[in-house]
């Protein structure tokens, strides 16, 4: 069993799951906060902010990867600061893969959360407020429970997207077996080297994981047609 789990394919799967979990967690926190902000607050530039935050969904991952490389690389503004202040180097680490996956998948959580919050009846929130619950309490006990299906659906999609991230990840995290070589990058390397057996196994694993996540996401997203 030990040797089976030490196979490169399973190491890559574990790494992909780790990266996708962290990326999804980051997206969930920021996606819910910003989704709520966009759904409920009126401020100048609201739609522009929405558009900017949705950009990763339509931009090629290579473009995002290049942006990230320029920003968090050793000579990038953020990368140089992290290096000098904390001695942290992100490029070619699994944390860089998390950042890449989180950026690419972020719009999926944001869009889902914003739409879900917009459908919540504000009168219910008002009622809770009248009953003396603090604003944060209203969010936690009224708004979020009513919106959670939409939020969770978007989150699962983000998880699936993070699992499949390739272009931006390869650019900032490289392809180091056991360290940054995620499933999708392991597939690429196996095909490049002509190792079709390995590629077949990896592709199979990836497909199964994605199908499971998509089925779960479909079950959790709000049913638009309850009669069907």
């Amino acid at each position, binding site marked *: 069993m030990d040797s089976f789990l030490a196979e490169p394919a399973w190491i890559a799967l574990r790494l992909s799951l780790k990266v996708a979990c962290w990326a999804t967690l980051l997206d969930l926190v920021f996606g819910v906060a910003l989704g709520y902000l966009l759904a409920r607050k009126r401020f100048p530039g609201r739609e522009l902010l929405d558009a900017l935050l949705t950009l990763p969904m339509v931009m090629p991952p290579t473009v995002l990867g290049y942006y990230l490389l320029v920003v968090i690389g050793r000579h990038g503004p953020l990368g140089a600061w992290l290096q000098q202040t904390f001695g942290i180097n992100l490029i070619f680490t699994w944390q860089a893969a998390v950042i890449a996956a989180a950026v690419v998948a972020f719009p999926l959580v944001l869009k889902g959360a914003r739409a879900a919050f917009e459908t919540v009846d504000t009168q219910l929130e008002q009622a809770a407020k009248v009953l003396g619950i603090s604003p944060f309490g209203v969010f936690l006990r009224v708004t979020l429970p009513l919106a959670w299906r939409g939020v969770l659906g978007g989150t699962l999609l983000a998880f699936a997207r993070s699992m499949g991230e390739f272009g931006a990840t390869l650019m900032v995290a490289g392809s180091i077996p056991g360290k940054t070589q995620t499933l999708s990058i392991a597939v*690429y390397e196996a*095909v*490049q080297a002509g190792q079709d057996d390995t590629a077949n196994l990896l592709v199979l694993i990836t497909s199964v994981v994605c199908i499971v996540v998509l089925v779960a996401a479909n079950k959790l997203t709000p049913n638009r047609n309850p009669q069907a």
Partner: protein
Amino acid sequence: MRGLKLGVVAVLAAMGAAASAAEITVSAAASLTNAFKEIGAAYEKEHAGDKVQFNFAASDPLVQQIAKGAPVDVFASADQDAMDKADSLKLLAAGSRKNFASNSLVLIAPLAATLPIKGIADLQQAAVTRVTMGNPASVPVGRYTKHALEQAKLWAAVEPKAIYGTSVRQSLDYVARGEVDAGFVYATDAAVMKDKVKVIATVPTETPVSYPIAVIAAGPQAAAGRQFADYVLSSSGQAILAKYGFGRP
């Protein structure tokens, strides 16, 4: 409706016209990028009507693409291993395989680097944390590097620091951006980025770095492909290769 039909006919005609010209597809090792682009332009000037299009990548994936049926006419590899693979898969036109250039493996560092690396033995230093090279499983420069480091009994020390590139040009880019401490590329690649990287040492290789070229048996433009391969071997082709620092075969 009529407009749509006319449009479809026009598009099909345009596509047909493009396909009927002698369009040679050349899959070549990434290290040949600059030299082959110039050779392609020179070839097109001498053979009016012919078009040369290039597909540059690491040699092994190029073999995989051809093996899976990519319409390629000429294949130029950065080592004999990749060409041997193509040969064993019976992809090459009989008798067309010839060596056309040589190169050397060099250790490079970012121009602004301050680490005291003077040769491959210094890569063992603890201060050196990241060394880029091609992936030995699919990139020739990675295979040359691995063999050279194994011979110098340094592979065990350097492997944990390795950042694998998907082609020699990716490794070159990592060094040029200063994301790694050092890297292994060909002398001709280092010359392309003289303003960003410095050559520390020439690394002796077990087998000489020699580039074979061959015509693909199933290529759609086999005759024109043969002509292009001959041009690479001709004195004009060799002069361009020499200009970019490649040695005689």
